[in-house]
């Protein structure tokens, strides 16, 4: 059963970029908590994978993944399409057998403990899938009947409440094939909310929604998180993660390249200064002298990364002007996950699709 593809223990650590220390610190905390006897359901890690890997016909879709999702977090799972997010989620949900490594969800191994774990997990995987010939209500009744732990006596009430919660009560008795994409997405969410869940796994929940729909879904996610539900939210939309999530992990080409709190991840990339001027060469020389790195010179603009201990920006500006640089614009560019992502992977974020 030995898989040659299994990542060496140390390998994954090297892939973790900037927030290495913070992540390691938290890892140590959770490990300590588990060792204290509170491992399992009551532990503060709801998803934990160890060197999780999946190989499809020779290509590694997921490679040595060490993921830790703390309880109570809204965890953003970020990565371009095809980076292995969905494969990871399917392995976490027991739909796919890992090639190597292990995954624990709510403290129990997956997929072996699927029967006891999954009733406490609501999931929306790769968009909604419905029976077009059944009404929205009957779709939910069917998914609820599939759960052996769901009480049939409260089924109707729970289905009604779930429909209410996602705002589909009015359209509940229409055939699902007549639903718009947004309605289908909501019905999929309703299926994930049929029971009180400890963990919600939402794979691209705002995909195909209009801005209003996106706002509603995000509000719902915040509401659920406020109730104490851990939300594991995969997305390829950076601002979505930034707006909603407390924690995030970044995947690229099957590997986990960073994970931590959103604040930590953003902090990982220091501020960037942009100077708009026709005298780009002189400006760049001066900025480099003041410790800025990664200078990019455009036709009318110079962008650079501020050093760890940045100089006073007012003084810097004065200095530029004093040196005869015609400053037309001077300011900090917004630091974001995207910067982190670019910094970590050295490539742009493919938002298409």
């Amino acid at each position: 059963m030995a898989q040659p593809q299994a990542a060496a223990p140390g390998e994954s650590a090297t892939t973790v970029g900037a927030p290495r220390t913070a992540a390691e610190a938290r890892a140590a905390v959770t490990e300590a908590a588990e060792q204290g006897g509170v491992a399992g359901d009551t532990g503060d890690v709801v998803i934990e994978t160890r060197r999780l890997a999946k190989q499809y016909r020779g290509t590694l879709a997921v490679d040595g993944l060490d993921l830790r999702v703390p309880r109570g977090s809204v965890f953003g799972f970020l990565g371009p399409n095809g980076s292995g997010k969905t494969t990871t989620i399917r392995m976490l949900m027991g739909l796919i057998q890992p090639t190597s490594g292990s995954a624990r969800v709510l403290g129990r191994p997956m997929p072996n403990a699927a029967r006891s774990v999954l009733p406490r997990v609501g999931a929306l995987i790769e968009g909604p899938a419905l029976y077009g010939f059944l009404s929205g209500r009957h779709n939910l009744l069917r998914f609820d009947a599939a759960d052996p732990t769901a009480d049939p006596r409260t089924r109707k009430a729970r289905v009604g409440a779930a429909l209410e919660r996602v705002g589909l009560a009015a359209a509940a008795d229409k055939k699902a094939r007549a639903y718009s994409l947004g309605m289908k997405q909501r019905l999929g969410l309703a299926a994930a909310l049929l029971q009180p869940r400890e963990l919600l796994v939402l794979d691209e929940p705002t995909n195909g929604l209009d801005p209003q729909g996106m706002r509603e879904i995000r509000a719902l996610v915040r509401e659920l998180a406020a109730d104490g539900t851990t939300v594991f939210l995969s997305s390829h939309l950076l601002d979505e993660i930034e707006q909603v999530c407390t924690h995030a992990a970044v995947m690229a080409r099957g590997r986990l390249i960073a994970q931590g709190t959103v604040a930590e991840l953003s902090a990982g990339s220091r501020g960037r200064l942009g100077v708009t001027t026709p005298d780009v060469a002189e400006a760049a020389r001066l900025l480099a002298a003041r410790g800025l790195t990664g200078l990019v010179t455009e036709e009318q603009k110079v962008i650079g990364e501020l050093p760890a201990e940045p100089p006073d920006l007012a003084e810097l500006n004065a200095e530029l002007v004093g040196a005869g640089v015609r400053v037309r614009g001077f300011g900090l560019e917004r630091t974001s996950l995207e910067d982190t992502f670019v910094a970590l992977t050295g490539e742009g974020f493919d938002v298409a699709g």
Partner: protein
Amino acid sequence: MRVWWSLGLLRSELVTVFRRWRTLALFGVLAGVPLLVGIAVRIETRNGGTVGGGPRGDNGPAFLEQVSNNGLFLTFASLAATLPFFLPMAIGVVAGDSVAGEAGGGTLRYLLVAPAGRTRLLVVKYASVLAFCVVATLVVALSGLIVGFALFPVGEVTTLSGTTIPLSAGMLRALLIALLVAGSLVGIAALGLFVSTVTDSGIAAMATTVGLLITVQIVDTIPQLHVVQPYLFPHYWLSFADILRDPVQWTGIAKNLGLQALYAAVFGSAAWARFTTRDVTA
């Protein structure tokens, strides 16, 4: 409690299967066969002629000659006419679609994370296909009974051996035959279920199952292949007619049911092996 909740999934599955327009259309086609046969026989025999043309009636479906004398035989003739292709094709469609259709539609992943449990879901799927077998057979039988009673005289039943039994006994045998016909479909139901776990396309699974049925039916008629024929699932299908002999011959019926049970065991467990270990990527 667990059992009750499992029944909940079964009930949901049955509702899902029997509510579909496709299922109702299949029933419609199946119910139409006895009607067509009945009307054809009625027209053919209006002037006292016989059906089938040839003096031996070898080429016509079984029991057709008896229909004009006794409407109950329309039930038997309809079952004999639909058993080789119509009924198993309907089963092939429903069984082939059972898992593959859910996979293709994506609903399979939601059932599995519900979590329906793979073994439990497969058992429920097979149970619902078997229920479809019974209902489909009863649709043919009841349609044959109604049309037969409406168009032809009904009375004492002549067995294949030439003896006569009362109508009530004949009706009882008709019920038994319907159940045997339904039982004859257990094998292809399991075969279709297995095929259904192999692919993510409902259409492909249906086509494969129906294709297998046709292939097996053809192989069953090639004399040079007689060595394998006793192991083909349709080989003893017509044994249900042995119920109408006097005395009833149970050997062929037992062989048929045994063979069906064997197919159910082999392909049912193959479906289980496949379904419980496969990656669900659709």
